[in-house]
């Protein structure tokens, strides 16, 4: 049967990835920033799966699972920090975190 060309999958992943990036750039709310990071990571996960299907390997999926755990861990640490941040500044706007410069 007709398979989807690998390029398409990668392009899709690429678009997702860019969405994530844009999210990181544009969002002030740190929660959304974290979510955008998730998007980015999962986009690369998708890319791995697409690549894996190209070669008919399993490594890609392995990698994807790893990325999931990785993302989870990141969010865990991130949320911890967000709580601290909210405690201290009563806000989740990242622009308050700009005391160090120069």
């Amino acid at each position: 049967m007709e398979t989807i060309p690998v390029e398409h999958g990668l392009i899709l992943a690429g678009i997702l990835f860019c969405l994530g990036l844009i999210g990181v750039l544009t969002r002030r709310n740190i929660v959304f920033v974290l979510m955008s990071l998730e998007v980015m990571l999962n986009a690369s996960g998708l890319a791995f799966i697409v690549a894996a299907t190209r070669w008919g390997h399993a490594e890609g999926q392995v990698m994807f699972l790893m990325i999931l755990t990785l993302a989870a861990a990141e969010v865990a640490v991130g949320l911890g920090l967000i709580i601290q941040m909210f405690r201290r500044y009563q806000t989740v706007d990242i622009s308050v975190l700009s005391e160090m410069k120069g």
Partner: protein
Amino acid sequence: MLELIWLLPTFPLLGFLALVLTGGTLPKQIAGPIGAGSIGLSFAVAALIAMEFVGSGEDYFVYEAWTWMSVGNFSPGVTFYLDGLSTVMMLVITGVGFLIHLYATGYMADDPSFARFFSYMNLFVAAMLMLVLGDNLVLLYLGWEGVGLCSYLLIGFWYTNPANGYAARKAFVVTRVGDTSMAIGLFLLFAQLGTLNIQDLMHAAEGEWEIGSGYAVAAALLLLGGAVGKSAQLPLQTWLPDAMAGPTPISALIHAATMVTAGVYLIARTHILFELAPSVQLLVAWIGLATLLISGFTAMTQSDIKRVLAYSTVSQIGYMFLGLGVGAWSASVFHLMTHAFFKALLFLASGTVILSLHHEQNIFKMGALRKALPVSFASFLIGSLALTAFPFTSGYFSKDEILLGALAVEGVGTWLWLGGVIGAFFTGIYTFRLFFIVFFGESNVEHHVDREVGGWHMNGPLIILMILALVGGFIHVPVEAVFSHGEAHDEHHVSGLIHGIMIAVPLIGIGISYLFFMSKTFSVEKLMSSGLAQSLHKFWLGGWGFDTLYNALIVAPFLFLARINRKDLVDSFYALIVTLSQAANGMIVKTQTGSLRWYALTLVGGLVIIVTLGVLL
């Protein structure tokens, strides 16, 4: 005996060391004898050596103390070379030198830095002897610079007055200009002929260069540069009148009798080289002529007794150069000697005058001093006669020979001779102008003269010099061997008319100055009334504006450059680098805004940039 020649510079040197190492603290009773005695000793030695040498009939005698330095084929030694010329020079230096030292012990008696004075004087004599005895140009250069240094130290002897310091520096720097040209000459000679030993050099030059060859001309010109510097000839004559700032014995010793004649000695020493470059030799003559005329005019306008004598010195050395230029070598050397006698006499006498009048130097504040200052009067009379070449005084014979030598030159000879004669005419005028104004007429003395300073050690030298100035003309100068093949001409017939003119002209000069300054038949005021005369007078008084010229052309620009670049331009370039990097820092630090979103943006931006670049490349 002859190999004791090394003693000559040694005695003064020891004297110098003795006086310096004691920190100039020696009392006069000791410093005086040391200072004058050391010169006396070397005069004694010089006399003995001279007798033996002349007696021996040898052409020359060489004594090598040690090899100074030996680098490849360049190995000048500390070697003394004795021949007729250096014999004359060493006798003049030690003899006249001794008299002047003796005189100075009296003249400087009241000066607090008595010992310092004599240490310089001794060092000077030592250096001067090195100059005339050195057998190679490097050793000669050593003496050459040494006398320059002492001249500097002595002109600036009374250092508290900045003017003296200025005069001293001027003297040193101006002569240094000449010295440098001479040094370059040395380099050229060595590069071309591979030695700096004077005799070898002359032979090599004769052997390798034909007459008028470019190298000969260049070398001769460069040496001439040194000579005009030291001997205060055009265009470097400006320093000598200012040099009168030093104590009068200095003017007598350094700036009349010895150092200033070093240029004459140099040219006479290297006369073969100059004969190989006839054009340069003729230039020497013209320089001498121009100098003697210009300074003659200037001398007529001066009012400072020592400046008058200074300009007359310049003009007399002009005669010597004229003589050298026309190849009357021995005549020049002869005049060098006689001039040493009578000019030393004049200076010392003026010293007495000045001291007696409590350091008054303006001749218009003198007058009618012949009674008050008999010794000075006598000295001045004899000295002035000799200076104006009054028949059968020493100056007469020497100047006569020079003028005859000039006349003997084909072509321009007559003109040179005529110039010389005119010079003699002015010599008569300015010399006796000085004489009459100082010793006759009514007295303009401000603080009255109690007694003439003197004592045997001041008057003794004066008397001896008077005798020499009178009969010095009969001394025979043993330099035939030196100039044997170089002598321009043998004594050929000269018409009596010529002789008559040469005798008459100075007398006319004297007569004119008598009418102006003695009998007041003519009045200077009337002469001065015309604007032209005044401007001329100003022009001559200022030494023909050479100082002004040099200030405008050289000194001022140098000072200007120095001033504008005190901060050192080059450094500002490095300062610029610093400023730039600080500016760059200031700009780039702005990127560290501290805002997370901006940081993220740079991250993404960077990615985009490198990816696009990478794909495009």
